[in-house]
């Protein structure tokens, strides 16, 4: 039996529900933890980020207006498809992070469980974070959480799948749309997650995954007037200060990065959901 020719991989971006090449035409080599060549990934430019924001803004109206129940179902479906791809994810995590097969598989399981956990939160957020306010008058006062809008996410640089899921899923569960910049050195799980999102029921543009350098694209996203919030999880230390400063120009919600990348296996609670929700309070007269 003759040897097969290797199928060489040059991955693309996941943007607006499609898989375009970077507008810049750039790619970069991805190596595993031992320094061996694995694949070529698209090297996203600021214009890809701009296009992604347009796609995310376009998808926001429908995604944010979907019922919490429906959003939960769609996100659960993502976990189902991830489960089917678990072996592929495990291989990529093992190669990228230099983990043993068993530990990589454990990280994948934790990531899928994390996604299911966030899928379950969609229809509970209003009950936990909203309230019927005590008022002194013949009316009701309600406070309800609403999604912030388009959220830029700089994904963790080290934890390529569990960290990625831990920052992306809460943004989507809250009803926001996301523009995510993956880990630069370990982008493969993000690329595969893009393929998962494309084949589940997530509408195009709700999640846009860019592979490339957060230090290059981050400043453009932080300054972008049509981005409502930014998660700095994957911004290296001196950069995060700078990004926070530029984000102030358009009064973005900023979720700061911890000084060291945290242990993503810990229970996140509501710490990543609450920052991307706005509270709307309404008065409503009591009927007769």
């Amino acid at each position, binding site marked *: 039996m003759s040897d097969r020719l290797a199928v060489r991989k040059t991955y693309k971006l996941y943007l607006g529900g499609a898989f375009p090449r970077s507008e810049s035409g750039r790619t970069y080599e991805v190596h595993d933890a031992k320094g061996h060549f694995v694949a070529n990934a698209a090297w996203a430019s600021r214009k890809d980020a*701009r296009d992604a*924001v347009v796609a995310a*803004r376009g998808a926001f109206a429908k995604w944010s207006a979907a019922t919490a129940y429906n959003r939960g179902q769609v996100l659960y479906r993502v976990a189902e498809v991830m489960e089917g791809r678990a072996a592929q994810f495990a291989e990529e995590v093992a190669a990228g992070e230099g983990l043993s097969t068993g530990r990589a598989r454990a990280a994948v399981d934790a990531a899928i469980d994390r996604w299911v956990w966030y899928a379950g939160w969609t229809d509970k957020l209003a009950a936990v974070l909203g309230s019927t306010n005590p008022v002194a008058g013949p009316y009701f006062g309600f406070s309800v959480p609403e999604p912030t809008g388009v959220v830029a996410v700089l994904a963790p640089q080290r934890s390529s799948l569990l960290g990625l899921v831990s920052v992306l899923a809460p943004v989507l569960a809250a009803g926001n749309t996301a523009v995510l910049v993956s880990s630069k050195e370990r982008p493969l799980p993000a690329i595969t997650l893009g393929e998962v999102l494309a084949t589940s029921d997530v509408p195009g543009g709700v999640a846009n995954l860019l592979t490339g350098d957060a230090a290059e694209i981050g400043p*453009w996203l932080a*300054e*972008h*007037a*049509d*981005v409502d919030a930014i998660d700095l999880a994957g911004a290296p230390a001196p950069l995060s200060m700078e990004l926070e400063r*530029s984000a102030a*120009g358009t009064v973005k919600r900023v979720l700061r990065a911890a000084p060291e990348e945290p242990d993503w296996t810990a229970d996140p609670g509501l710490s990543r959901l609450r920052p991307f929700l706005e509270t709307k309070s309404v008065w409503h007269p009591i009927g007769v």
Partner: protein
Amino acid sequence: MTHVLDPGALTGGGSLTGPLPDPFADVTRSNDAFRAFLHGLPGVDQVGAQARVTQLGTRSIKSTAKAWAIDTAISMVDLTTLEGADTPGKVRSLAAKARRPDPTDPSCPAVAAVCVYGDLAGVATEALTGTGINVAAVATAFPSGRASREVKLADVRDAVANGADEIDMVIDRGAFLTGRYLDVFEEIVAVKEACGPAHLKVILETGELVTLDAVRRASWLAMLAGGDFIKTSTGKVSPAATLPVCLVMLEAVRDFRAATGRQVGVKPAGGIKTTKDAVKHLVLVNETAGADWLSPDWFRFGASSLLNDLLLQRQKLRTGHYSGPDHVSVD
């Protein structure tokens, strides 16, 4: 792929400096003669036209050239609202936007004109008096053009009486497609007369003409009949303005000026939504008709959503960061 008719050949070696005798005076003596003339125009190489616009569309326009292109494009916009739901209030808010497209930046140029239905031309005129911005009104049973000539002419007179500086008329596509070219010609001549001092833009509705050959014929027909502008579309039919159609029309105005000495403007309308589209059109104008047409007097964009995209790009160049739709007015 040049189609310039040699003016010397047509005028018997006459000089270009003096007023030219009309070399086409007798082509409209009968429908048959007119048909023979129009069908005698060189055919359009459709694949060539497509390839040409694709190639020109790859031109990279950056930094200062882009800033110039954006400001020029803004000054060429005919800010348009042609909806059944138009109200005087909407026209007044559009007029305010026409005067100061970007209220946060006084250096932003005003648009060329506001384009409305004839009955609202009075409201627009009132709101734009003294600003130098023209009021364009669509007339002649826009957008279908399906009405008798008396009705169409009354429509035009009414719009002019309401203060319109420019009239956008539609041709009778039914007559054009059945080969009654002289009827179409005479109708344009009659409308031109009814316009009085107002400029006449002739809408060819290229989406219904099907072929580029028909676009070239319709362009020549409209120019011979005295149109001051030829305009692609009403915006109500898809496809509206496309680059190959615009190329053919720009070639027609270029050749017409070379043959008669009279310059006619071009207005693509409908479907031009992004700054990139607008810049591609400007490149096409410069490379086809020439820099003489790169002015709001000779080239216009019929658009509504285009202006906001131009403003967003302009803000990006000014501030250095990307802007968003929250930072321009909602029309």
